[in-house]
């Protein structure tokens, strides 16, 4: 029981915030929140949710583990899919594009994993290096936005919006039942203790970055579906906001605590917050102030609440 409380404790606040924001949003814009529009909204929120989920495994692995290149990964894969494969080579079949997206993501993830676990460069700087490389390469192969994306891909942001998110969630559900997941949480909480207990720390961490890359590939599909084109400037903007979503969702940036569900809830919070603020038609500057203050306030409240839960669990 204590374990369940502790596991849900982290995302409890984000979930509560989600509920409040949903009520506010439905009240403000009932038209957008009709059941018929749900899939469209999901498609709109999907790239941020995907980016937040992609950022999570690397963060869970601890000791400063983080992948700040998730945004540019989405941007590069978006550019390769639409500009190179669809427009230059005329390949638009889902059975080519979907595996291609995941494969490129896996390659970049493996590169990040190699840099952080085998070469042992500090993760934020290693992935910052990848960030610069990926966004530079993206701008080189795609100086300006082009389109369009194939119709089936666009439908992933409409009638089929649940598909990519569902696939990521399902895969994580299987993974969280594996021995690797337990090892990841052990390494994230205390890598030295895990190492002395015989956990292959390097391998476990490497796979976390690999997984982040694969999920970034999935997030790139969601992004391509939503914007329906290739755009070199959109991807990198997701990096920092995705990390905010992860933190909001109760994932500890020190590693070892949290999960993809929390990250997804945190991302939905940010999406609904932006949606509600946009409704008031205020200047984007005020929006930015509100967004920053609510982010800090939310993280502060999450920390206070996690402490309270931890104290209660100790008493039980």
């Amino acid at each position: 029981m204590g374990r369940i409380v502790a596991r849900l404790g982290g995302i409890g606040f984000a979930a509560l915030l989600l509920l409040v924001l949903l009520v506010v949003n439905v009240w403000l814009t009932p038209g957008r929140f009709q059941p018929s529009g749900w899939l469209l909204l999901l498609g709109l929120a999907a790239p941020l949710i995907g980016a937040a989920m992609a950022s999570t495994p690397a963060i869970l692995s601890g000791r400063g583990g983080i992948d700040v290149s998730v945004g540019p990964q989405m941007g590069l894969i978006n550019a390769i899919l639409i500009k190179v494969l669809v427009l230059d080579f005329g390949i638009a079949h889902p059975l080519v594009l979907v595996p291609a997206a995941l494969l490129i993501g896996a390659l970049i993830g493996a590169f990040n994993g190699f840099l952080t676990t085998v070469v042992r460069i500090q993760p934020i700087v290693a992935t910052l290096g990848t960030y610069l490389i990926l966004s530079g390469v993206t701008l080189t192969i795609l100086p300006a936005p082009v389109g369009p994306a194939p119709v089936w891909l666009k439908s992933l942001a409409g009638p089929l919006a649940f598909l990519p998110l569902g696939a990521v969630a399902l895969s994580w559900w299987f993974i969280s039942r594996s021995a690797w997941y337990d090892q990841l949480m052990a390494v994230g909480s205390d890598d030295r203790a895990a190492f002395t207990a015989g956990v292959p720390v390097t391998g476990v961490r490497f796979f976390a970055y690999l997984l982040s890359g694969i999920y970034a590939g999935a997030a790139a599909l969601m992004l391509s579906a939503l914007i329906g084109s290739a755009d070199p400037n959109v991807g990198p903007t997701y990096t920092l906001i995705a990390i905010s979503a992860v933190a909001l969702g109760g994932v500890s940036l020190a590693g070892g605590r949290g999960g993809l569900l929390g990250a997804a809830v945190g991302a939905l919070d940010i999406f609904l917050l932006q949606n509600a603020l946009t409704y008031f038609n205020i200047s984007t500057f005020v929006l930015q102030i509100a967004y920053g203050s609510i982010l800090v306030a939310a993280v502060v409240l999450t920390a206070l609440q996690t402490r309270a839960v931890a104290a209660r669990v100790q008493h039980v």
Partner: protein
Amino acid sequence: MSSRLRFDARVFGAFAIAVALHILGTWLIPGYSAPFAIRALLVLASLLAIASIGQTLVVIVGGIDLSIPFIIGFANVVAAQLYGGGMAFSLVCVIVALGAILIGLFNGAVSAGLGLHPLIVTLGTGTVVQGAVLLWTGGFPSGSAPPAVSAFVSIGGSTGPLPFPPLVPVFVLLAALVALVLARTPFGRRIYALGSNPRAAPLALIRPVAMWAAAFAVSAFFAAVTGVLLLGFTGSAYGAVGQPYLFQTIAAVVVGGTALVGGRGSYLGTVGGALVLTELNTLLIGLGLQPATVQAALGLVIIVLLSLYGREPAIRSTI
């Protein structure tokens, strides 16, 4: 002792690479070592190194500060706006510095007091500060720098007999002061102690919240100084002028051998890191590469450099 040697090797490595890059540049690009080019390089490296003073302290204490670019933008725009509105420049500086220090104190106190990751806290406050500045100016800042500040950083300037603008010698003194404070004062030793063992330090009567607040306040203060200096350098206010400094300060700190897990590093290393980054940027642009290619090459070179001499110890050696 061995860790001490290793850490000095990293500092030495950063300076050696800066020199190597400079020789490479002189060999490849005509005029790379011309007096004007060297002055420009020193001015740019000094600006980056000043912006990285706080990042070095914050990283040694075990944190990270993402609000630096936003505070640079804040100081840049607010100083121009107030000075343009007719306020005395000394008063402008006091206001800007106090504002920045308050933001820094908040960053450090909230991160340490509530056990929050500073990455999120500083990102949040940075976003708020940027929004507030944009709101105040409507996105179109006006005003300019006083001539004294422009002369202080002007690439063509000179200091008495020295062929540099005053910024360069003043920066050398400042760097020596920062290195001295870190290595020889109780404040500096506490920063290292807290960064290397956050659990043991409070038992030695080091107050974590106060130390974090101080480190982040220093960071915000020097970010504000950079913002005002950049105003003199570019001539007009621009809210996003600090954006390149977000990753560059972190890269300078790490290339200079300071570990992001805290407790080890030095400001001398950061100065070396700032030189390396400035040399690299100048070299790549001088080779006629497109901005996008420069960016990609910069990322690649940072990775290669760190894989040569910036590697972390293997887990089995830390038990």
